[in-house]
């Protein structure tokens, strides 16, 4: 009898704690976080690919081979944006991938344009892409399983 009463008290306390926690959060944030898109192998693989290509591609700056790397980076970032933006409750990831496309598109347009591209620009741009890919990979990898 006493044990049952203690368990009931503990259960009531837990329910109160849950209620207080839930009420202290805004409704939208609560729903967004509960429903958020879970970890996705394909999304993670794609951002890892972009990070790796940017990491290794910087060595090609100043050579003719860099054009292939630039095209690959642009293609991969557009593919990731298209993939992530149509997953439900995936707004933050879609926002990041959309911005990454802005960065890689500029790079692609410059290499497919008529003006000469400096090696310094190439190295800095690859650095920007890699830095952002690392930021994105960490949070994409941490998504709930």
């Amino acid at each position: 009898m006493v044990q049952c009463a203690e368990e009931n008290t503990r259960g009531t306390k837990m329910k109160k704690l849950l209620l207080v926690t839930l009420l202290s959060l805004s409704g939208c944030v609560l729903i967004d976080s509960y429903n958020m898109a879970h970890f996705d192998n394909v999304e993670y693989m794609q951002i890892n690919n972009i990070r790796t290509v940017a990491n290794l591609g910087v060595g090609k700056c100043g050579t003719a081979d860099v054009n292939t790397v630039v095209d690959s980076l642009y293609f991969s970032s557009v593919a990731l944006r298209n993939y992530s933006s149509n997953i439900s409750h995936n707004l933050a990831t879609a926002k990041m991938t959309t911005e990454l496309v802005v960065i890689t598109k500029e790079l692609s347009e410059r290499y497919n344009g008529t003006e000469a591209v400096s090696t310094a620009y190439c190295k800095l741009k690859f650095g920007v892409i890699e830095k952002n890919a690392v930021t994105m990979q960490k949070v994409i990898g941490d998504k709930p399983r």
Partner: protein
Amino acid sequence: MSTVDSVTAEANALEAQFTAGELSASEYTELLQDLQSTKVIEAAADDLATLTQLNGLIKGLIAVASAV
């Protein structure tokens, strides 16, 4: 280093390369705009990290409440 300080340091480094003639004017402008894009990505990454933490908290609380 604060966010403002780190952006200022990066912008100063770009300006030095531009002044040294290593970057063209359009390349310099584009790389400055990339600093803004990087901040957008970092802000969205922070949002995602917060949602992930809340998701864990809510699921943990639900698990505890259902076990009692």
